[in-house]
């Protein structure tokens, strides 16, 4: 049942820069420059808590955002800045979450990558890996019950998340219900510091698709053209009623797990291999080869200006005030709890 799409890379890279590639390229550049800035802000001590970047994973993540439509649901994980931006999350919201702006969707109650905006169709992830698979399945079940047709859900996971019970239970449930769900696994070889061989024993994670009774697709996560083709294909199949799709992209994270981590445990042989290519550089050099270098540079300049403007704007926004916070975790129980006076 697995549909291998490795050849797609070779084929698609010869095609022209279509509208989807423009969307992906811009999202990749915007994500890279925004994350470079987040790294700087972290080192400057301006961000409380961790910073988790998607450096090297922009093509796979961004392609998911590009393949979705307005009205679809996106449940990103921690390295999906490019996917978020491609799907329509404003740069400001990322900065608001990291800098604790009260005007952000999480209002300083949660931060960094644990952000989302249900009104935009972006689910805010919890830290527990695999949890978003069944939750997104629930959103899709609800849409089906409400008679909303033609909506797809796409969620992201890493190689480490595939070892959780949540991932298994969620994907199995979605398969049983034949939901229009796309699960994108960014297999970057390491879960924090743990290499693949300590994480799973199967030859390739995409082989698991057969066991779940879902369609599986492999893709070179360093090739932006291949990522768009495979992700668009998977999203279209899900939308067309073919049930859940498992996409496994092979790539390398070109940074630590978080900015506190130097990532020195990554094998230098993998870093020098094809898997260690920087997808942003791949896209840049390919565009230059095709004579689109100016276009690339203009995206870069635009993105740089956007990042600077967003940082200035969000830095001036108010932070949460504990005296104005209502400290109620339930909507219905707040009055009764107050009378309980604790």
């Amino acid at each position, binding site marked *: 049942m697995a549909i291998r799409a490795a050849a797609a890379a070779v084929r698609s890279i010869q095609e022209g820069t279509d509208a989807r590639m423009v969307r992906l390229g811009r999202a990749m550049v915007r994500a890279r420059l925004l994350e470079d800035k987040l790294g700087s802000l972290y080192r400057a001590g301006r961000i409380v808590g961790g910073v988790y970047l998607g450096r090297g994973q922009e093509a796979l993540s961004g392609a998911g955002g590009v393949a979705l439509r307005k009205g679809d649901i996106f449940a990103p994980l921690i390295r999906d800045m490019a996917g978020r931006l491609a799907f329509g999350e404003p740069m400001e919201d990322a900065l608001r979450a990291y800098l604790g702006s009260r005007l952000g969707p999480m209002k300083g109650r949660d931060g960094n990558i644990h952000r989302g905006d249900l009104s935009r169709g972006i689910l805010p992830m919890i*830290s527990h890996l695999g949890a978003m698979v069944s939750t997104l399945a629930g959103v899709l079940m*609800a849409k089906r019950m409400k008679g909303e047709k033609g909506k797809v859900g796409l969620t992201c996971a890493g190689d480490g998340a595939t070892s959780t019970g949540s991932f298994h239970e969620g994907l199995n449930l979605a398969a049983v219900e034949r939901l229009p769900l796309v699960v994108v696994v960014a297999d970057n070889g390491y879960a924090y510091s743990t290499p693949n061989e300590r994480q799973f024993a199967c030859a390739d994670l995409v082989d698991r698709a057969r066991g779940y009774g879902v369609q599986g697709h492999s893709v070179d996560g360093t090739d932006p053209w291949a990522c768009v083709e495979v992700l668009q294909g998977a999203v279209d199949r899900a939308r067309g009623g073919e049930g859940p799709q498992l996409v496994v992209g092979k790539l390398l994270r070109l940074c630590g797990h978080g900015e506190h981590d130097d990532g020195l445990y990554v094998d230098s042989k993998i870093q020098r291999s094809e898997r260690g290519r920087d997808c942003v550089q791949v896209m840049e050099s390919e565009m230059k080869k095709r004579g689109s270098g100016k276009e690339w540079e203009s995206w870069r300049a635009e993105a740089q200006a956007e990042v600077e403007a967003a940082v200035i704007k969000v830095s001036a926004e108010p932070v949460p005030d504990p005296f104005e916070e209502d400290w109620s975790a339930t909507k219905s129980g707040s009055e009764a709890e107050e009378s309980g006076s604790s």
Partner: protein
Amino acid sequence: MSVTYLDAIRSAQEKALASDPTVFIYGQDVGKFGGAFKATKNLAQRFPGRVIDSPISEDAMVGMAVGAAMEGMRPIVEMQFADFSTVGLNQMLNHAATTYWRTGRPCPMVLRLPSGGTPGSGPFHSQSMEAIYSHYPGIVVMTPATVEDAYTMLLEAVEMPDPVVFCEHKLLYYHLKSDHLPTSAVPAFRAQVVRAGRDVTCVTYSAMVHEAVAAAKELVEEGYEVEVVDLRTVKPLDTDTILASVARTGRLLAVGESWPWGGASAEVVARVASEGFELLDAPPKRLNAKDTPIPYHPNLWAAHRPTAVRIAAALREVLRY
């Protein structure tokens, strides 16, 4: 006509399904089979596509409900036994319970837990889970003790904009009967004095309410009048009703079927000790199950949990201080 506690739960779900198109039921064997305890009997036939069999995946069942609730539905998830809800704890405690706080968007869902001990059920089919769920912010925890409350509180739970853990006691399913379904309801977050008395307050909930009332009757012969307070909902906790009762009696025994370390009875004693210390004429006391897994054999089980006899003995200690 006679209505059991289980009939009330089934009828409440039937009414919720009939009156609100966003309500649906999800759980193992809940469809055509009607559920392990028959709490959803005939509902799948009457409401096609809305009473749905799930795989044996408690984590994904709760996770699915969280997503459906975010999308505007009001799912009722049936756990086959409360004990198995430990597998779904992450989704309930870290996802359902944090959604309103983190996003401002309510997460209306009900997790039905067939709870509590019955003879022969043993360590993994007898647990009372209210302490764990109550510890986490963001969840309402209901523990109905009567046929009337099983019906009206479940309907209120479904309408609530928050995740509700509905602890229904299996021992009450078939034996507890009422003449008819109630037509009015005490508000869900209000505790209730189910037996008035002047000498000592016994605060409890769920099946232990009936043991406490039996103990109170036993003590009448000894000249004591025991006031029994049924918490009904353990979170939020109706401290006002508890303190008002202790103000009348000056003495407190808090009883729970669950384990002694922490939990609802500990919270009751802590609140009365810190907020009503001057009301007390004797040290407040707690009575819970023994601190071991729940035994299989009826001889051991009967000694493990609080019973009317043990509650009466504990009440005498408080009264004779």
